[in-house]
């Protein structure tokens, strides 16, 4: 018994040390992107993105290591889901960056959120894999977490690209882009939401399927569920706003950002909001 526990300790320490290193890599990327924001050269932005790429590769190993070590997919606690969220966000960013845009600043919000997720997990959550409580032993739950966090990550990048679009659309010449190049940021943000929306829909439906099997009811208007529905509705509004020519360049970018804000509230903000407004939280999940 003691041997097993000793081995578990060693494995956890290896994992956490790499975890810390990855968190610092995300921080380093932030520094380069900040340079890029103020100096407006292309090189620092590119370095920022390369650092993100290194972090993501190393991060992949931690996720696989935990999977192997705990002999189950690592998505059951907030500690591991935050890490998965950071990984998905950076991986999505790298996919967008694979098109080699000349402006890398969309990496800044992504690096900020990834670093935040990693440090928040490491410093405030219990890192040890606990035994799975009966309700969590469900493949619906597993898919629910995997896909919902993937959709969050896609929305993070969509919002970053949209913010960048709003930032540069009035200053295309300072970043030496043509109007058309600037427009591609707006279109890319839209494509990302078109990808994220079915993922979020799947996240919600699989969550309902899980709740149905675990508690015998697929929907109970719990604040977290309801917020996920708000997020979904706001993104549906965005998708339709993009089809109305007069809204496309006016309201739509802001609705996209609003969708992102709702997503963050769904993800982590519910408890804080409950405390702030003095809402008695009867169902609120522990964050």
């Amino acid at each position, binding site marked *: *018994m003691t041997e*097993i*526990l*000793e081995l*578990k*300790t*060693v494995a*956890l320490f290896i994992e956490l040390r790499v975890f*810390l290193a990855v968190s610092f890599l995300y921080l380093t990327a932030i520094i380069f992107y900040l340079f890029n924001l103020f100096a407006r050269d292309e090189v620092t932005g590119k370095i920022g993105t390369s650092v993100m790429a290194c972090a993501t590769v190393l991060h992949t190993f931690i996720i696989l290591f935990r999977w192997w070590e705990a002999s189950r997919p690592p998505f059951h606690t907030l500690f591991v889901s935050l890490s998965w969220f950071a990984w998905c966000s950076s991986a999505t960013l790298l996919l967008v960056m694979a098109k080699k845009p000349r402006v890398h600043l969309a990496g800044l919000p992504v690096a900020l959120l990834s670093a935040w997720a990693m440090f928040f997990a*490491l*410093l*405030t959550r*219990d*890192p*040890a894999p*606990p*035994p799975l*409580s*009966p309700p969590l*032993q*469900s493949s619906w739950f597993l898919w629910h977490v995997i896909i919902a966090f993937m959709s969050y990550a896609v929305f993070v990048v969509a919002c970053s690209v949209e913010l960048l679009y709003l930032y540069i659309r009035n200053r295309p010449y300072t970043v030496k882009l043509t109007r058309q190049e600037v427009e591609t940021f707006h279109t890319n943000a839209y494509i990302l939401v*078109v*990808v994220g*929306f*079915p993922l979020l*829909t*799947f996240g919600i*439906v699989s969550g309902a399927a*899980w709740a*149905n*099997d*675990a*508690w*015998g*009811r*697929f929907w109970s*208007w719990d604040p977290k569920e*309801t*917020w996920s*529905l*708000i997020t979904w*509705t*706001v993104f*549906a*509004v965005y998708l*339709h*706003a993009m*089809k*109305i*020519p007069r809204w*496309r360049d006016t309201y739509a970018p802001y609705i996209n950002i609003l969708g992102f804000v709702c997503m963050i509230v769904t993800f982590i903000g*519910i408890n804080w*909001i409950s405390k702030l*407004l*003095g*809402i*008695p*939280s*009867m*169902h609120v999940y522990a964050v």
Partner: protein
Amino acid sequence: MRKNVIYRHLASTKTAIYLLLVLSLFFLIGTIFPQGVGLEEYREAGGKFIFGARYLGFLNIFQSPLFLLAGLLLTLNTLVCTAERIIVLARRRSGEWHPGKEGRRSYAIPAGSDIPDLLLRLKAALKKRGYKLRREEVSESGGTLTFARGIDLTITSILFHAGIFLCLLLFYSTHYLSYENVLSLYPGETKEVELLGEKMAPFQLKLNEFSTLYEDNPKIAFPPKAHMKIAALISKAGEKAAFKLEPGAVAVSDWISDLSIQREGKEVLRKKVEVNVPLRHGGFTFYQMGYDQEVELKVGGETRTISPGKPFEGKQERLMISGVRHGTLNRIDGSSEKIKPFFSLYRLKEGGSRKDREKLGDLSLGERRRIAGIAVTFSRFREASVLSYRVDPSVGILYYLSFLVIILITARLY
């Protein structure tokens, strides 16, 4: 009818946007106010928005007529939008160009123009205003390019909007046509299953056995402070924080009800139901919801039946027992052992809550001990499995349809 103002509004994407926004406002209210809670309970829990709670029905917003109306309007909106697109598509197919709202622009192309370049420029200029190239009739001697704007007629889009409409209808159906209830059974017991009113299901449910599985729950003593955590990770000292398995540190890994469905005294189906593994039969679904224990104690010669977690009077003070732990413990080294049934006895502090308590000791089945000045014997206990069940004819179709809609929306990407 298609010229009717109401129809035109219901066929508009802007209406969909406004309705979706109104719905999200309702959702928002539903997260600010706890749902299904009484006014007094809300006030006691520290709720601040008494006005909304008392006069606007915000404590039950998802049952409010206004919410249901907004949902219904969206459902209608989706239906009309889908129908409108099908109508337009059908007319387009038969050669008629849909007139009216849909804007249309034709450009005459003189002979000998650089068509690819012209097309590119026109497309770029018109795209911003929502126009798409619809017809290209050009040859070397010139021709026309026709652009139009209006609703998109992609088949997948029509299909998934139709799917969304059906999903919305099914939501209403599960809301109004489902029935749920709770049932508790002791091992060996057979019960009728109640349906609406006096009606009963055409079968009986029997619990053959109810068991609980536990597993070891080792914990790691990691420093709680953030900077200490980082220090522990970058120095050697951290490894002192090792996994430890405290005695009795276990976690429930499963509750299992071995159930049989009986018709006319004969078993027709047998299944082990767990959390996440329900039993479906004849339109009913049975879920493992929890358990209910009753403990028989002899306290100073008097026999008492006690429920775990509920305070009772001892000699001079208020006492309470924990739930009885019994079942099988699976150890991390792969072995397993039976747990002899036991509970913990607590003394509650004067005037304090149930959490304000002092542990007096553990007592296992058959054991007699002097605790807090009186002799206590744990003589017997019974345990019922609590199952919830639900009859909901639409929920299954709703799942399949939702997944179909998701696939269609994804297909829209290509």
